[in-house]
Every structure is written in C-alpha cells, then in structure tokens.
C-alpha cells in the first residue's frame, strides 16, 4: 500500500472492525454512499445535526451535494461546511440571511470562491435581507455563470462592479441584482455577461456597462428616486444587445447608449394617455423612443390601463376629445401584427381598433384577448364589427381572438400521396396543416385522421380559456414532433407542429430545408453496410417486447472531471513516449506513437495507479474504434449508421503496467488500434449476432470513446462557436473517458473523465497526471444524482 493511503485504510479498518464486533453500530459502518442517500432525505439542517453523533458522522453531512442554508446559518457555519467539504461537488448553494447584525459574509465568500473554482456549481443565489455586504477584495469565481443578489446593502466603498467584471467572474453569464442599497456607482466591464437584470438599486447615481456580448439588459426603477429627481447618469456599450428594458429615468444628455444594431425589443415605462399632455413622464418615454428611432415597428403590444379618476379633468383634456380617433392620422406602414389584451369593447376602444385597421396598411394578424367578463358571442360580434370597418378588403387581415395557447387553426386542404401527408394553404388564411396522425397497417396507408380546430381557416373566436388545439395532440411541451414510419412500399413522415411557433410559410420553409439536407447528405448513406454487401436480410431482434432491451441503470456515485490538453502538452507527452520506446529499442513503436496513444497511456496508467489495485490484478485498456476508414473499400463519409467496434489492449498486471512506463503503454494502445483491420472487422461482423446488455462496469479497466476528430466546434447554428462540448450523464461509469476536440483546435484535446469519488480524489493527487493536462476552463454537469 502506498503512502497517502492512510485515510482509506483507516476507513476500511473501521468498517471491518465495526462488522467484527457483532454489528453493534452497523449504521455507522455503512458506506458513505448509502449514508449520504439517507442524509439527503433528512434535509440539510437535520443532516447537519447528525454531526454530533460521533466522529464518523461529524463531517458526513458535508458530503451532501446540495446545501440549503436556512436563515439561521451564519457566515461561520457556511464557512465551516464549505471548508470541511471533502469531495468538492456542491451543485447548488442557497444562502438566505436575515438582518441580525453584521453578517461575516467575508468569512465564507472567499472559501466559496475557492470551492467553486475547481468545481461544478454554476449558480449562486444570495438573499441577504439587507445585511451589510462588503465586497471581498479578492477571490475569483472562475466557473460561476449565474449570480443573483437580492436585498443587499453595500457598505464602504463599493467595488461590486469590479467584483462582477471579467477578471474575477470570467464565466459570468447572468447577473441579477434586486433591492440593493448603497450602490451609487456601478461599473460593469464584462466580456462574458449575456444578461443583466437590475431592479430597485435605490440610490444609484451612475451606471456604466461595457459588455460586448450582452444580449439582454433590464434596468427597472434604479435611478427613479422620486424625491431627489436626480439626473440619471449612464453609459451603456453593448453592441450585441437585443432586448433593452429601460423602465427608468431617461435624459439623452446624461444617458448614453452606444450602437445597438441588433436591438429587437425595447421596453419602457407605460405611456400616460390621459391626463396632462406635456407630462414630463411621457416626455421621457418619447425621448427614449425617439433616441432609437424605430421607423419600422413590426410588432406592437398595447395594454389599456384603466386608472381610477382622482379628479375631474379640465375641459380641454385629452380624454374629452371625440372618441373616434379620427384626428390622428398615422401611417403604421410596417405593422404586421397587433396584440391587444383585456379589451372590454367600449365604443372608445372599438373606434381605436377600427382605426388601427386603416392606419396599418399591411396588417396581417390581430390577436385580441378580451376582458374576462366578455362572453364568446359578444367577442364574436365585436370582432365582426371591427373588421367591418376595414378600408381595403384586399388586405383584410386575419383577426383571431385567442388565448396564448390557442391561435387559430385551419386546414383547408389535405391530400395523401404515397404515404406522405401534404397540407396546402387555403385562401386568405395561413397554412396550419399541422396536426396529423395516421395509421399504417399492412404496408399501405389505410386510414388517416386529420384533426384541426377552427376549420374555416380564416377567423375563429374564443374568449380567454378556450384552447383551439386539443392538448392530447400536442401532448407535452415540444414545439414540433415527428415520426417516420418505414412502410413496405413507402415512407410516411408525420408531424405535429405547434402553430404558435410559426405560420405555414415558415413551417414549409423549415420542412423543405430539412428535406434538402436529407437529400444531399443521406442519399449515399441509405444502404446499410453488411459484410456480404447487403445481401443478407436485416437482423431481426428476437424480442417482441423491445422494453426488455432497455436497461435503465442507476449510475453509481461518480465524479466527473473535464481535462484539457493543449497541442503543446500533447506533443511533449508524445515525445516522452517516443524517447522511452527508443531507449527500450522499439523503433517501430516509437515511430508510430500518436497524440491519442500518448494521452490514452497517461490516463490508463494514472487511473490504474489511483485505483490502487492489487499488483497482480490484470488490467486492460479499451477504446471504441471507427471501422469506416478501415474497411476495404472504406465507407462513404456520409454513411449513416453505426460502424464502430471496441478494441482492447492485451491484459497486463497492474504493477507491470506502472513499471513498464508511459512509452510501453502508449505502444500497447497503438497495437490495439493497429490490429483493427478490415479482416478483423469482417470476422467480427460475421459472428452470430447476439443481444447483450451494455456492460457498464469493469472495476479495473477503462474505456475511451468519442473522438477529438468529430467536428464539434464547427457545429454553428448561427450563434457563434460553441462555448463547450459536453456529453451528459448517460452511459457513464467508473473509468469511462470521452474525448472531444479542444475549443482552440490545433490538435488540442479535451477529456471527460468519470471515476468514483475516491479514485478521482487519488487521481487529483497525481503529479505525473497534472504535468500533461489541466482542468478545463468550464466545468458543468454533475451526473451523480439523477
């Protein structure tokens, strides 16, 4: 047994000792994993109480993956819990503090910062009940993506802006601060922030935001200090901003917005329609709108507010004007869509609705949610009246009243052609051929059912609460769902599509784009590869009930580490293997070493060492290998299907693997891959097909899958290069490694390593290991607990 193993050994001894004494305290003798499951069901506070039972229990509760510190926990408790946390894997940290004296947040915040550094927690939520908070002068929250501070009072010179900016929060994506006091000057400079929500920062005088990636900025009631009417001073530089909500004081002289070419949504305070025309309130709103100069409003949302009249208006008040709105002649030449909520149908309102039809020449859709007391028949009548006044019939828009879940559905025509369902647009309506279910029996389409709501396809009515689409069709929450049935004489694709998502034009555009990809990419890939060139019949699984093939295993307690290996360190690792092989006289092995072999060797040896296996325990290294390029002839690049097999090295006693060194292990991995030839693949494919459960466990082996050759970072949907690639929690077990390309490319590799907590803890102590890899900059997903 190696040094450093003392703790584990002590634990084992304790286990056996307890078991040997006739099971006196058998509860304490249970493995940590089981005890943690028990503690999880007690809740954090009750779990913490078990610390008093005995030494065995003292720090057990600190292993909980979730902490919910109630209002009674003070900084010292939190610090103690975090500091005592042996295997760092806090998924979630929730702190709720109340105003009872100065809270020594500085006690634990730096500890938390360190803890979260090498760890998986990405969200931190603090509700501090207006406790005084002094921003700690140091501490880097390297992995925190989401910071939310509620009810905070800052005292002393406030450096919060400095704290949440890039150097100390390099991964921060979302920042929320609500109900803060004492924050007068807030300067944020962050390259990573995507969303900032500031609400009620009482006493804010100056706000400066420089955030090149920022997409959403919400500033509500921060400067609005009615008593002082101080001038807001702000400077916002966020060139990628898409959504801006500025429900706050605005003065173009002191509030500066930089270029925002992507701005799609602007929210302001409400606009007072009644009352004094030149109210400073409205004046500010107008100036804000003017600042952004929206000359093309594609969508307008109106909320009609009914304020109780407090005093009689003057005789020439705005609200005394004739209710026909004819005095205003507006040209809303880009308005396509109008949504009105809580319409009561007063003469005044209906006149306004009619006017909208004439102002908005290209209006396509108006959605009205009536006030709850309006009956369906009244709503129907009101809609008819409103539309009756439309100026030009050619542009008669579709007027639908609806609850958000239920836009009007109409299927004007549908036909079945060779098992494909085709829906086409009717006149004037939008295509909504979306809910199609069909049954195929015996290879031909014998029955099809088409379900729609609102068959007239043009105007449907309903009061709030009416749903236009049957929930059993849409079922869950998916916006689109599809099935493809492979018939004997055709293929039958069917779709369920949520109409709220888009109109028919967009739906068919989408479907055609999809089909185009399929045509281009899959044409070559349709024939399944088999050793005899496709002559054999497809394999039929010997089960009627396929559920028997699905094994749902509970994953063991695992720790996951993302590791990054740069091109340089890989090259060095490769060179070390080469030198060792040359020294051992294996020139051929030395010449053939690849980066993959070198990294695999490192992982294999270090993991084997971390496991402290018996010296004569045989170990193997397995990896999934691609057949595509190894087959003769090779498969086309577009081949769609599975063409991988597992290969393994020769079994070697653990002690020998460690003794023979890095070069030997790298060469062994190389040999395992090299023997995987066309001949071997064909021989294995020709074996009688068998169905066996996916084996997830080989306590002494390891398995490498996925590949740094997969183009993961080229997969750009138009939002830019992905931040990270991760593989979720399925099929994970002790010793599983998944390889990804490094984000910077150039031959760098990321490795996602799964080990049991104690093996991972041992691995993390291994200097040889850290000489070639470093923790990846982003750590996500703890898959230990479903």
């Amino acid at each position, binding site marked *: 047994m190696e040094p450093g193993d003392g703790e584990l050994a002590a634990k084992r001894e304790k286990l056996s000792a307890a078991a040997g004494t006739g099971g006196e305290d058998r509860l304490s003798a249970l493995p940590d994993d*089981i005890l943690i499951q*028990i503690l999880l069901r007690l809740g954090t506070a009750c779990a*913490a109480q078990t610390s*008093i039972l005995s030494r065995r229990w003292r720090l057990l509760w600190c292993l909980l993956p979730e902490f919910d510190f109630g209002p009674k*926990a003070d900084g010292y408790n939190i610090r103690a819990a975090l500091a005592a946390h042996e295997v760092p894997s806090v998924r979630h940290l929730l702190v709720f503090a109340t105003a009872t004296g100065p809270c020594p947040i500085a006690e634990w915040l730096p500890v938390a910062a360190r803890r979260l550094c090498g760890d998986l927690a990405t969200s931190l939520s603090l509700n501090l009940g207006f406790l005084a908070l002094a921003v700690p002068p140091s501490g880097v929250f390297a992995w925190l993506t989401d910071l939310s501070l509620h009810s905070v009072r800052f005292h002393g010179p406030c450096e919060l802006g400095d704290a949440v900016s890039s150097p100390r929060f390099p991964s921060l994506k979302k920042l929320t601060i609500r109900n803060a006091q004492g924050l007068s000057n807030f300067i944020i400079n962050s390259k990573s922030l995507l969303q900032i929500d500031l609400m009620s920062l009482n006493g804010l005088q100056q706000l400066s935001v420089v955030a090149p990636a920022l997409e959403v900025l919400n500033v509500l009631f921060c400067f609005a200090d009615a008593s002082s009417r101080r001038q807001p001073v702000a400077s916002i530089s966020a060139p990628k901003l898409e959504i801006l909500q500025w429900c706050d004081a605005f003065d173009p002289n002191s509030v500066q917005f930089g270029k925002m070419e992507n701005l799609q949504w602007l929210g302001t305070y409400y606009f007072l329609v009644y009352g004094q025309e030149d109210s400073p309130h409205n004046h500010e709103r107008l100036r804000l709108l003017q600042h952004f100069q929206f000359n093309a409003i594609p969508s307008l949302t109106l909320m009609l507010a009914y304020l109780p009249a407090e005093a009689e208006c003057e005789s020439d008040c705005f609200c005394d004007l004739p209710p026909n709105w004819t005095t205003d002649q507006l040209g809303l030449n880009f308005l396509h869509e109008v949504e009105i909520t809580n319409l009561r149908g007063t003469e005044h309102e209906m006149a306004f609705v009619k006017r909208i039809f004439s102002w908005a020449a290209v209006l396509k859709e108006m959605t009205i949610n009536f006030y709850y007391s309006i009956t369906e028949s009244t709503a129907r009548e009101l809609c008819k009246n409103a539309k009756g006044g439309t100026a030009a019939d050619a542009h008669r828009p579709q007027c639908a009243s609806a609850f958000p879940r239920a836009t009007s559905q109409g299927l004007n025509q549908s036909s079945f052609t060779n098992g494909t369902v085709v829906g086409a647009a009717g006149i004037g309506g939008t295509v909504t051929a979306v809910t199609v279910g069909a049954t195929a029996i015996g290879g031909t389409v014998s029955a099809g059912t088409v379900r729609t709501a609102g068959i007239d396809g043009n105007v449907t009515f309903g009061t709030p609460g009416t749903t236009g689409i049957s929930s059993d069709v849409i079922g869950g929450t998916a916006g689109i769902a599809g099935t493809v049935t492979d018939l004997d004489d055709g293929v039958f694709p069917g779709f369920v599509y949520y109409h709220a998502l888009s109109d028919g034009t967009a739906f068919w555009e989408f479907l055609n784009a999809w089909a185009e990809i399929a045509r281009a990419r899959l044409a070559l890939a349709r024939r399944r590869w088999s050793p005899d060139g496709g002559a054999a019949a497809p394999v039929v699984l010997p089960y009627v009930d396929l559920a028997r093939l699905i094994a749902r295993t509970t994953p063991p307690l695992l720790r996951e580490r993302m590791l990054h290996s740069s091109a340089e360190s890989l090259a060095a690792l490769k060179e070390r293997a080469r030198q060792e092989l040359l020294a051992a006289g294996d020139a051929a092995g030395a010449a053939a070493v690849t980066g993959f072999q070198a990294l695999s060797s490192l992982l294999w040896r270090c993991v084997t060492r971390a496991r402290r296996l018996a010296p004569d325990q045989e170990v193997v290294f397995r990896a999934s290998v691609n057949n595509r390029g190894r087959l003769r002839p090779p498969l086309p690049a577009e081949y769609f299907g599975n063409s991988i097999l597992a290969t393994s090295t020769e079994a070697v006693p653990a002690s020998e693997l460690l003794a023979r060194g890095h070069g030997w292990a790298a060469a062994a991995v190389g040999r395992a891959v090299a023997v995987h030839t066309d001949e071997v693949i064909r021989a294995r494919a020709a074996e009688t097909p068998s169905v066996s459960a996916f084996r997830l466990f080989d306590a002494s082996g390891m398995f490498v899958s996925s590949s740094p050759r997969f183009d993961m970072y080229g997969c750009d949907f138009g939002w830019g290069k992905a931040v990270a690639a991760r593989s979720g929690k399925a099929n994970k077990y002790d010793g599983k490694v998944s390889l990804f390309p490094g984000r910077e490319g150039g031959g760098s590799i990321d490795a996602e390593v799964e080990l049991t907590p104690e093996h991972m803890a041992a691995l993390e102590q291994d200097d040889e290991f850290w000489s070639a890899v470093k923790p990846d900059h982003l750590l996500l997903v703890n898959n230990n607990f479903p």
Partner: protein
Amino acid sequence: MAAATDDAGDSNEMIRVVSSDGEHFEMPEAAANLSLVLRHMIEDDCADAAGIPLAVVAAKPLAKIVDYCTKHAAKSSGLTIEEAEELKRFDAEFIEVDTDMLYDLLVAADFMGVEGLSKLAVQRTADLIKGKTPEQNRETFGIVNDFTPEEEEEICKENEWAFQITKPPSRLC
C-alpha cells in the same frame, strides 16, 4: 411484420439463488430481473440449476428480498389504484423490521441493485433518525459517542443554526 418468436428468457422460469451461508432460494425470473445484478447474470446465462451465488447476502435478508421482488414483479405494470395502494401497504409492512435487518437490507439491496427496495430502506432509516435527539439516535443505532465533552460543545456551536431550526429536545444543544 412477422411476429418474432419469444426467446426462452420470456418463459416463467424459476431462478435459483444461493445465500452466503449456503441456503437456496427460488423466484420467478421476472422477480429476479428487479435486481440489476441478477438480471445481468441471467442475461449472461449464469443462471443454472446450481443457483447464482450471492457472496455477501445472508439467508435471512435474502428471504426478505425474494419476497419483495416476487411481490413487486407480480404487480409491475398497469396497476389499478387499489393494487398500487395494496403494494404501498405491503411495502410499509415489509419495512417494519428491526435495525439489524434494516442494515442487512440496505447493504443487500445496494449490492444487488434492487432500486425500489434501496429507496424504501433508505427512507425508513431517515424516518428513524428524524425528529430524535442525538442521544435517542445513538441509542437506537448503537452509536458510541467518541467525542470529548469539549468537542461536543464545539460541534454544537459550529452547527448551532442546524440545531436551532428543528429544535430537537436535546439536553446538549
């Protein structure tokens, strides 16, 4: 589509298992399948007439586990409300065991990978711990207090918040 024929695994074969102390038990294959370990063994054709040896499960808990699996396998899917409630009652009675048996079940269910039973035993243990004073818990589970009084006081202080929240009627804290 032509109906595929059932393989032998679908039959109502009895699976034999052998406890660590050499006792033999039998249960229907569907019941054995509730244990991940047994299911893998069966799939690997290790279930022969000699029985699957379970080296760390003694006869006493194994008898209970066979009972549990047999009951749950018989009522696995498509339960009526009455049947579900009956199964709940069965579970409640089933887990009314002394602590010795509870530990055996915790360990055995974990080892054999019987998920439902693991959860049941874990919840039962948690229920036994909840709302008790440390002294009561030590007594129930035979936990020896190996702290000095000073250490004990320190821990109380350290985790004062936890003891305040649920207020156990403790003499110590």
